[in-house]
């Protein structure tokens, strides 16, 4: 009696277990596919970079004699395309850090004024920022180039910084306005009663409380500046003024096909954003959900 009573139950438990294993198997297969999909082009970079110069495009899935020679060449600037590599690397850092600083400064000042000081017609600024945010940057590239000629800033890192700050600040203003709403206005009020002027409120109260948003936006601006290509390419044309992004794409004009050096450069160039990404992932994700849909 008890056996006939139990068997359907056991069967259902078995089929449940079977189904669970099935789901697990599909999950794992899918996971492997996702991993291969994500890593394939990065793997390709390593394969080419580890090739020796004669073996590039030998058609091997893994180089027969993997060597770090091309990395040594890049680090010691031993190829004529790479003669200014470290200088260009420093340029990239200079552009990135300056863009980050200016974006944070301008963005926080603007959102402080609109959100906390309640400047009349401040919404106009927010709308202007929203417009800038949704318009693709490449559409302004050609006139921007002309205007930089008028301003006399061609071949100057500041022209790139100007472009990047222009396109990063709107995002900063959004994030700061959103995050700023969680800081009680009473703090400003009491500071004001104690005789603080707006600058003191901004510097002593607003900025310290905005720290998480500042980190998120700062990371974003740094990544944007480091990874940007179009404006860098348009504005910078001499080896002394170039950033790594431009120098890297220059390889494509070469007849010698030094692809292993190019990919080694690419890997080194990609290291800072990777470190930044893994170091600040938590803050960046926070930034995304705080406000952002920006790539």
């Amino acid at each position, binding site marked *: 009696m008890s056996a006939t009573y139990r068997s359907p139950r056991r069967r259902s438990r078995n089929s449940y277990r079977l189904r669970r294993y099935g789901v697990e198997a599909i999950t794992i297969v899918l*996971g492997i596919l996702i*991993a291969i*999909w*994500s*890593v394939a*082009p*990065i793997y*390709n*970079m390593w*394969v080419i970079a580890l090739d020796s110069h004669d073996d590039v495009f030998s*058609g091997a*899935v893994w180089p027969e004699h993997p060597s770090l020679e091309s990395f040594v060449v890049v680090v010691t600037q031993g190829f004529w395309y790479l003669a200014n590599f470290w200088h260009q690397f420093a340029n990239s850092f200079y552009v990135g850090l300056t863009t980050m600083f200016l974006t944070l*400064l301008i963005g926080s*000042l*603007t959102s*402080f004024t609109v959100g906390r000081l*309640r*400047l009349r017609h401040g919404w106009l*600024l927010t709308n202007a920022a929203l417009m*800038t945010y*949704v*318009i*693709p940057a*490449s*559409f*302004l590239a*050609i*006139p921007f*180039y*002309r*205007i930089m000629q008028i301003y006399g800033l061609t071949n100057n890192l500041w022209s790139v910084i*100007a472009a990047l*700050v*222009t396109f990063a600040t709107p995002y900063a*203003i959004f994030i700061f306005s959103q995050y700023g*709403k*969680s800081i009680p206005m009473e703090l400003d009020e009491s500071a004001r009663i104690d005789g603080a002027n*707006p600058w003191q409120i*901004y510097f002593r109260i607003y900025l310290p409380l905005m720290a998480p948003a500042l980190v998120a936006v700062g990371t974003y601006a740094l990544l944007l500046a*480091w*990874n940007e*290509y*179009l404006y860098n390419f348009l504005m910078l044309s001499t080896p002394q003024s170039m950033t790594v*992004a431009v120098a*890297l794409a220059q390889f*494509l004009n070469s007849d010698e096909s030094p*692809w292993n050096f190019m*990919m080694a450069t*690419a890997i080194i160039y*990609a290291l800072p*954003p*990777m470190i930044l*990404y893994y170091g600040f992932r938590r803050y*960046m*994700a*926070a930034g*995304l*959900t*705080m406000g952002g*849909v920006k790539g």
Partner: protein
Amino acid sequence: MSSTQHALGFKMARGRSEPRFRQPPWRFRLQGSETAWAVAFVIPYVAVFAAFVLYPAAYGLWMGRSPSLYGLLFSDPRYVNAAVNTLLFVAVGVNVKMFLAFLLSGYFMSRSWWVRLLLAIYLIPWALPAVVVFTSIHFMLVTQWGLLDSLWRAVTGEDGPLFLTSEWIAMAANIVSYIWKWMPFGTLIFLAARMAIPRDIYEAAEIDGATGFKRLVHVTFPLLANVYLICTLLSTVWTLGDFPTVYFVSSGAPARLTDVLATYGFREAFDFGYPNLGVAAMMSALPVLIPLVILLMRRVRATGVQL
């Protein structure tokens, strides 16, 4: 997934307390010296906006003002081709990306350690510079010694196809590369949005018998519909001006047949020295771009979604 949860901490706490912006009861007026401060504080942004957005935009409109430019454009078969390619690139790229990102965000909801590790790997394409990854993909495809052809040879023993000599394969490669680079980001957005859905909604749905696929269609998707729509609109607008993907992956090959508007305009302006024609090519996207931007801005305001 602590990062996203951490992020949601902000969002949910805020979302619950004040759905819309409210005026404080003790609203004050700016007094003399404070107005001066406020004006001084916004001057940097006003200057940046005027000098680097308004001026270039007006200058661009002025450069592309002549109607004859558009006659010239439309008589160029390569322009027409680029316009069609742009539509194809945006329509397929954005929609496939968003849909897959939506599905994959469900996959990454799992809390097991290896799915979290996988997420970290999956997000790499998004963090890497576009020049780097797209050049690498270009090398996978160009010539018969790229990685894909090598794999082909290893498996079949024969030489693989030349990918970039076919217009359709080259275009497909551009779209796939675009999806590869930007899908992780979409997934991250959906993941955050999914985590913001309270558990009790799912529990209630389960009692009503909605599980698995039914739950996805009738519970999760409606709750994410707004985020989905806004992300799609925003991606569409940005992708209309996407430059590096096509510039590096196919670089217009074969014979500039896979150019999109951004690369077409760029080449006209800087390789062939017709900047006005380049600007006109970009401006010809405005009839599509402007309605999208208006729709997007309205949507953002109406729903109060944090953009």
